[in-house]
């Protein structure tokens, strides 16, 4: 499918995402102007403040955006019982974007005013202007071009950074980019990147035009000053309202997911099961990057999502690896209840662990069932592993030791390339994900972990206890999902989305119908 075809088929979604993106950029740049310009003016009046303030703004620019999101989500700052900072969604994204946009605006306001010719300032003072009159009638009009240049830089930064906001469910064109990265789909990546680049270029050109023409416009006269003030007040009101509505819609059940296909499908399954069984309104807050889903759950921004027992044990509780599935589940269940007031419900039935894979023909030829079987015949073999597997605690070194592997060659490559390499006989054994749709598609065989080296990664919905108490019917709805998915079924669902490019919503609905849960 070409990019143009994609756009014509998804015109409405593209429009929505573009508006979301523009919304994020306009609101955050607007707030950054309202904070940055007065702050820049203040610095020209109190130059001793300029070092610490500009230093802080400088540091904010160097913080990676995902790290900044991770820092903002657990915050809970209230003003008049309204949460103003913290959680997931557009509001947190706006706070982060404002922090990024501040530096160029403060710096340019400060520089613009400081670089007004001292003779002109003297002329104004000598003519009997008060400090305020000098500021509004001379310094600000003369610095306006430089200030607008700062706004221009800030806007372009915001357009770029707003794509990352999709990682915390703030919407925008980043959704296409993240979806594309996940599915290894260049058309999708471009579908997000090209409009974002166009917005950036358009904003740059438009503000560049304003910057050039402003130098020829005449003074801020009494009338236009009144206009300026009323537009500032209007903008302020708009931003306040916009910021308020950018928050979570209260009173609905929020289902979250991490940012890969399987998680989005599982999120849909949870959402549709709850909708169908309880009739409660459900919002979907999918595609949360890194460990943000967990943090959003703890912060109460979402009510449930599907977590894997091994991930909870190693990445969140930071415990040493355990391998007995029931024991791991017991452990995470009690720790989560004690530490986070979160409830693990019924496991969905499949284990998304590392899958040690060989070609079907080799499995037949050597009669391979378990990893131990393979270890015996693997002296001449080459292996291909993702970077993640090579480095993690439950990864390659322990694996090779446990089973006594001595490969002729071990190649480190991107996970998405390992399957292809195996099929093309460039390697003979790879470690993939057990639920990957490509496994059945390529006729690969997963070898049994007979020495129980890998921790279990059983998929289980995790729910906030307060949500279950308020809506016990959600517990009932989740109970019927217990054991509903085998590894093989999960692979097929993943393939339907990744391989056949179907919508997760439709795939989930079809599956629930098949299982008699949805009509």
């Amino acid at each position, binding site marked *: 499918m070409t990019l143009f075809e994609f756009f014509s088929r998804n015109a409405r979604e593209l429009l929505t995402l573009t508006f979301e993106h523009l919304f994020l950029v306009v609101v955050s740049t607007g707030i950054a102007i309202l904070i940055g310009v007065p702050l820049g003016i203040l610095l020209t009046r109190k130059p001793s403040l300029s070092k610490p303030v500009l230093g802080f703004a400088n540091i904010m620019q160097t913080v990676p955006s995902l790290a900044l999101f991770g820092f903002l989500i657990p915050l809970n700052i209230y003003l008049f019982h309204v949460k103003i900072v913290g959680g997931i969604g557009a509001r947190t994204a706006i706070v982060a974007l404002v922090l990024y946009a501040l530096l160029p605006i403060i710096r340019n306001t400060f520089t613009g005013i400081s670089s007004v*010719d001292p*003779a*002109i300032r*003297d*002329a*104004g*003072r*000598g*003519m*009997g*202007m*008060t400090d305020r*009159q000098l500021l509004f*009638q*001379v310094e600000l*009009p*003369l610095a306006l071009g430089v200030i607008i240049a700062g706004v221009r830089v800030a806007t372009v930064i915001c357009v770029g950074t707003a794509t990352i906001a999709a990682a915390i469910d703030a919407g925008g064109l980043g959704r296409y980019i993240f979806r594309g990265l996940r599915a290894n789909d260049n058309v999708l990546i471009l579908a997000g990147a090209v409009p974002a680049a166009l917005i950036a270029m358009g904003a740059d050109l438009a503000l560049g035009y304003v910057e050039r023409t402003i*130098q*020829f*416009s*005449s*003074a801020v006269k009494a009338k236009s000053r009144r206009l300026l003030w009323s537009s500032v007040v209007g903008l302020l009101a708009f931003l306040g309202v916009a910021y308020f509505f950018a928050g979570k819609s209260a009173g609905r059940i929020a289902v979250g997911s991490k940012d890969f296909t399987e998680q989005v499908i599982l999120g849909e399954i949870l959402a549709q099961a709850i909708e169908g069984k309880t009739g409660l309104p459900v919002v979907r807050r999918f595609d949360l990057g890194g460990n943000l889903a967990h943090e959003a759950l703890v912060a109460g921004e979402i009510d449930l999502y599907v977590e894997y027992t091994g991930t909870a044990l190693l990445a969140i509780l930071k415990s040493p690896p355990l391998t007995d599935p029931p024991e791991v589940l017991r452990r995470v269940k009690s720790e989560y209840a004690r530490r986070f007031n979160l409830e693990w419900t019924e496991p969905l039935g499949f284990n998304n662990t590392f899958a040690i894979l060989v070609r079907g023909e080799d499995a037949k030829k050597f009669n391979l069932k378990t990893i131990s079987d393979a270890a015996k015949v693997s002296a001449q073999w080459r292996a291909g592993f993702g970077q993640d597997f090579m480095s993690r605690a439950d990864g390659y070194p322990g694996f090779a030791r446990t089973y006594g592997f001595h490969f002729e060659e071990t190649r480190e490559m991107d996970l998405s390339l390992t399957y292809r390499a195996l099929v093309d006989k460039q390697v003979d054994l790879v470690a993939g994900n057990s639920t990957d749709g490509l496994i059945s598609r390529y006729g690969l065989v997963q070898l049994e972990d007979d020495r129980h080296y890998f921790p279990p990664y059983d998929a289980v919905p995790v729910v906030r206890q307060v949500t279950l108490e308020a809506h016990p019917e959600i517990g009932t709805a989740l109970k019927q999902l217990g054991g509903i998915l085998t590894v093989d079924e999960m692979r097929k669902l993943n393939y339907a989305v990744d391989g056949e490019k179907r919508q997760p919503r439709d795939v989930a609905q079809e599956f629930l119908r098949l299982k008699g849960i949805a009509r």
Partner: protein
Amino acid sequence: MTDDQTAIEFRDVSFTLPDGKTLLSNLNLRVQAGETLVLLGRSGSGKTTTMKLINRLIDPTAGEVRVERKPTVEWDPIRLRRRIGYVIQEVGLFPHLTVEENIGVVPRLEGWEPERIRERARVLLAMVGLDADRFAARFPRELSGGQRQRIGVARALAADPPVILLDEPFGALDPITRREIQREFKTLQQELKKTMVFVTHDIAEAFVLGNRIALLKDGELILLDVPRALLQSEHPEARAFAECFYDAQSSGSSV
């Protein structure tokens, strides 16, 4: 001369920077109402410092400056400055304002009606020899140096202040324009009869425009007298300027 003819008076005035450098020491000086006093001296002699003490852009570190018999430190600086027209080198025009708006700055600060400001701007433009219809809506960068300087003078006169300070107003002009504008200014001066303090380092200009000349060197007053007296003084600084004046005369006559 009686005391109520004194418009500006310096009494033992010194000005020292925080780092201890003295820019002006022990200055005693009276400017009579209606006269033009030229402050003459080289760069760094304290001319501009003297001028900024009058409209309180700076305050004396010792002694006192009196304007209309009241010490400047007792004046509200804003009120004081609006009673004193101020002309500095051509950069003093606001580049973002039109000619008319530049001239109208002080009247606008004083809250005049827009109609009255426009009318006043037309009168002043005519007074400095510029056609209001052609120039009122232009921006400073669209004017020649001489035109800009005329606007600067018009702006200082806008609210009809009794005192006008001019800090090397014609310094950046070419010699011919300069001569022209000096002549015009002289006529204007005789018409208006304002108290003026005029800073320059050009002795010829001082001769043309000054009723009296105050010669400054390194922050000290060396001589205060009518122009002719400067040519007869034995003081080396006065003689240096006098020689300069004779050179200019002889080369000027050969042109």
